[in-house]
């Protein structure tokens, strides 16, 4: 019972932060809402038994990556977003279309997708660091290494784009 209450609380918090992220005009407010989303997602992972993933989510996404986001926003001193003049479509059809989309997703999840066994909080026992390590460095070693090379490529690309032209 407590699990369900906590889950509903974190889920509501996550969705609330996500909506706030879109609604806020100031980049810092949006970035902080994203931190809230990441943090609450981490807590939901923790509830489901993925303790290592939860902490990795907190350290990497909510901690390191979002701090860099905020750092850049502060450094560029980005101001409040100017409200753009919205066209008529967005103004009048936006909300009904959004409701229709959510309804459609709910319908598909409810009726079209195959039913799983349902979620049991804490039933997943393979989320500790040891088992993740074994999986990551034995079963999925190649994808893991390929991903790291991909990130290296991205870093090199960023440096090439950022450096000044050498004449």
């Amino acid at each position, binding site marked *: 019972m407590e699990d369900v209450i906590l889950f509903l609380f974190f889920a509501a918090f996550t969705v609330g932060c996500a909506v706030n992220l879109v609604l806020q005009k100031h980049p*810092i*407010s949006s970035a*902080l809402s994203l*931190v809230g989303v990441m*943090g609450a997602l981490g807590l939901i992972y923790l509830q489901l038994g993925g*303790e*290592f993933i*939860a*902490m*990795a989510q*907190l*350290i990497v996404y*909510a*901690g*390191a990556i979002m*701090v*860099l986001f*905020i*750092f850049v926003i*502060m*450094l560029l001193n980005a101001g409040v977003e100017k409200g753009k003049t919205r066209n008529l479509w967005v103004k009048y059809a936006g909300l009904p279309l959004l409701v229709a989309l959510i309804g459609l997703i709910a319908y598909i999840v409810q009726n079209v997708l195959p039913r799983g066994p349902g979620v049991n909080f804490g039933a997943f026992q393979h989320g*500790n*660091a040891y088992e993740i390590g074994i999986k990551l460095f034995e079963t999925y070693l190649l994808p893991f290494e390929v991903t790291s090379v991909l990130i290296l490529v991205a870093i090199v690309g960023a440096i090439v784009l950022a450096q000044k032209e050498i004449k």
Partner: protein
Amino acid sequence: MNFFVLSLIKAAVVAFVLMTTLAYLQWIERKVIAHIQLRVGPRRVGPHGLLQPLADVIKLLTKEDMLPSHVNKIFYFLAPFIAVFFALIAISVIPFGTEISIGPIKTAMQLADLNIGVLFILGLSGMGVYGVALAGWASNNKYALLGGLRSSAQMISYELPMAMAIAAPLLMLNTLSFRQLVDAQAGYYFGFVPRWTIFQGPFPQIFSFLLFLVAAFAETNRVPFDLPEAENELVAGFHTEYSSMKFASFFMAEYANMVTVSCVATLLFLGGWHPIFPAEYGSKFVPTVIFLIGGLISIYHGLNPARAFDRITLPIAGIVFIAVGAAFLIPIVATILLPLFWFAAKAGVILFLYIWVRGTMPRFRYDQLMRFAWTFMFPIAVVNLFVTGLLVALT
């Protein structure tokens, strides 16, 4: 007893002890730095200034709380909360001693034994940056913004060598839970060399320990890495615009971070609550002897007082010291107090190191700080991690 009630009681005790420690840590810091600089430090409020922390708290609580006119109100109020929240909550996973039993109740001297305790601390230290960064930004002040930017850049940079320095002993001890980490450091080589991580084979973690200490100084924004609040360049850095209790929150967060980092260093590298030499050579009498010596010294100075007031205060302090020392001789009490004593002694030595360094070292220049992190500490941390991994894999 009910788990919930027990946890509440433990939380209350830990919170009270932590708050008192934070208040008196500042008193100790002022005294130690004063003696380093041949001054006497605070001594007006209470005997030897012992009530100074209380006076400071009252002063900070009753001061006018200024709200500058150009701040971003939400984040300006949120920042001290974030800073102090993530700083104080970290203590919940720190174990202070072995399992104890009082009557029918058996409990661990720890609020929560997470099996990912080390990662939890790392996560919190990553989140703690937001307090400082937001404070700097929301203040709408050039100096504060620069302080916040410096702080976030510095903490991200030093988090890498710190995480790698933490990873090396974890490789050897093969667990992420603080309690199991300490249990894995029990015992002695040749009967007298403790199996702490800094002495333990196959690769004694002395380099990790030094790297961790240096990175921890930077993570807690302490001298010589206190660039975010460098007063000769930035007025007071990120907390320039904060006054009253909001300023005190940042102050408290800094000291709480110091305490946490010292506890983590003790648990990871210095064997937690295991004594420095085995009980059969009499390590259980060490606290008694120390408190006895302290008590005798203060009674001696009470009998030959330098100031009239010392005639009363010092003998009382001496008797209290001797009484505490005698308490360590009662077997039932000693089982609880001995682990606490060794834990507090080791953490206290590291805290003293913090203060000592503050009284001795000048501040880094910002480019030196960054170069030090990326070109010196980071490569050494990587090499250290690889060597440890290799040796662990070979043995």
